[in-house]
């Protein structure tokens, strides 16, 4: 039994077949990347895994448990966290508050306790803060701790979003284009962090990415897709050499 499996996953929006019969398995501790041209259905797969869309067909199994059919908010409790392609942070809150929201699935106090702010709530808050500070140290966000997200540059926001996903304490991390909109140095940092997340934190990463430099540097295995279908799967070098992948990106040789 694999750690995480997508089994014959399909979704149709009316007549549009966004994802057709995609199956793959992610092993624990690996970085698995999905690549493909625009409209290949990569982000749709992420939204299927986050249960934002129900699949038309197929199932998703995480740690031996089928998750299709659960509610979207339950995914975080299972240990799956995600980032978004275009950054979905809580803009009018500080970085620290954003990260603390990431601890929401560890909430143990109830409404009444919180309104009275009992000692139990205070202890829980300090525990949340300690967990968050570990992530802040890990991703070097100390300088931005108290800043409002609305005032931060794009590159920092990307890191904050990654940090927020880490704060949920995930076992599987879904990264939707972690390097989009980043300059080469920032992309480099991102690659280091993904490697650290894999090696130091021992997390499994499922990633959608366009930057082939980053992909071949951090990924253990790559899945190439086009128009909702699987093209090739294997190591980054194998996939890049695959004739069908080259054709999907560059077109057929005359």
């Amino acid at each position, binding site marked *: 039994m694999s750690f995480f499996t997508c089994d014959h996953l399909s979704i149709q929006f009316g007549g549009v077949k966004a994802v057709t019969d995609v199956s793959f398995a992610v092993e624990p501790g690996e970085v698995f990347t999905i690549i493909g041209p625009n409209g290949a259905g990569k982000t749709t797969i992420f*939204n299927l895994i*986050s249960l*934002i*869309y129900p699949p038309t067909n197929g199932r998703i199994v995480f740690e031996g448990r089928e998750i299709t059919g659960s*509610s*979207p*908010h*339950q*995914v*975080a*409790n299972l240990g799956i*966290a*995600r980032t*978004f*392609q*275009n*950054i*979905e*942070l*809580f*803009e*009018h*809150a500080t970085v*620290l*508050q954003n990260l*603390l*929201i*990431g*601890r*929401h*699935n560890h*909430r143990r*106090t109830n*409404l009444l306790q*919180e*309104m*009275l*702010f009992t000692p139990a*709530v*205070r202890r*829980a*808050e*300090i525990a*949340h*803060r*300690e967990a968050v500070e570990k992530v802040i140290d890990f991703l070097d966000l100390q300088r931005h701790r108290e800043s409002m997200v*609305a*005032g931060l540059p*794009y590159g920092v*926001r990307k890191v904050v979003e990654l940090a*927020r996903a880490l704060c*949920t304490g995930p076992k599987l991390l879904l990264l939707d284009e972690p390097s989009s909109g980043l300059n080469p140095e920032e992309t480099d940092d991102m690659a280091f962090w993904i490697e650290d997340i894999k090696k130091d934190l021992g997390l499994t990463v499922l990633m959608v990415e366009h930057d082939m430099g980053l992909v071949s540097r951090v990924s253990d295995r790559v899945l190439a897709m086009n128009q909702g279908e699987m093209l090739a799967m294997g190591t980054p070098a194998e996939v890049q050499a695959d004739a069908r992948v080259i054709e999907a990106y560059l077109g057929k040789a005359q």
Partner: protein
Amino acid sequence: MRFLFKTDYNQDIRLFKHGGQVFWYGLLAIALLTLPLCLPEGLRDYMLGQLVFVFIYSIAGFALMLLIGFTGQISLGHAAFMAVGAYTEALMQAKGVPFVLSITLAALFSGIAGVIVGLPALRLKGIYLGIATLSFGYISEEITARWESVTGGNSGKHLKAIDLFGYRIDDDIKLYYLTLALLVLVALAIINLMRSPTGRAFVAIRDSEISAQSMGIHLAKYKTMSFALSAAITGIAGALYAHKLTFITPEQFTLLASIELATLVFIGGLGSFHGAVLGAVFIIALPQAITVAKDYLPASIAGQTGLQPTIFGLILMGFLLFEPMGLYGRWLKVRVYLELFPFYRKGMFRRQKAYMKSDRLK
């Protein structure tokens, strides 16, 4: 300029962040507690009466701030919850229910009404939710006017003085202390909530529902909770309002009253605790200021009937255009200006560019 040296996580959690805040809030508390004793005889009843209204509106302001300012769910029908609270209190008092229990029931019934109104909020957003709540306010206004067997219809309901464990709250000084105490309790409850996971979940829903959901926040549950809490606290304000007026009719809880409450939050400053109180002061003081100003205006203007709503509308537009952060935002700018003098720069509060959001997924 004050720099805080932080050595303990508790420093970020506590209510007062530094000695200066303790000093100023302490001073405010002493001023409010001794005010009834200091006011001259002739002015006392009038001033205390106005301050009781300010406190009641502040309670409602905190409730609405929770919903609009922190959860981002607009409500243009909040006077309806005040009405539920007010009529529950009137009916319960007539049945001889003690005050502590009757005001709890007022909160409870308003809370239940809030859950019912909150249900469409699970599906509606922005302006559509505004219209849905607006219609709710309108319907409830009609119901209070027509359901004569319970509400007394347009002939209204009388309330007796509050009986608090045998102690009669029969003048404005006593009511002043009672409403002040309740305001402090409500304010503390909401401030506590906002520094706990539930409050952060509200803020998350306000700023991005899609990522709130993927952080494990149950959207339906927290939106309903926010509506229910806000309605319940507004119900408390409504019950106190009924006691202040001693006579309630459906005319006190019209659409205009709802809009007045929403205006309070916008003028006070969305998403700030101070805004709820500043907005309430503003809403109560403005009609008085207009009355005073009428003496100095030419008769052709002063005699116009719609003067007050017009000025109200103009001020709201002015705030939306020039100071979206409201009175609290203005105060913040003045404070930073003074703290940094002479180094304040013009663009310090300019709003930053917002990056593109993902396409809404649902």
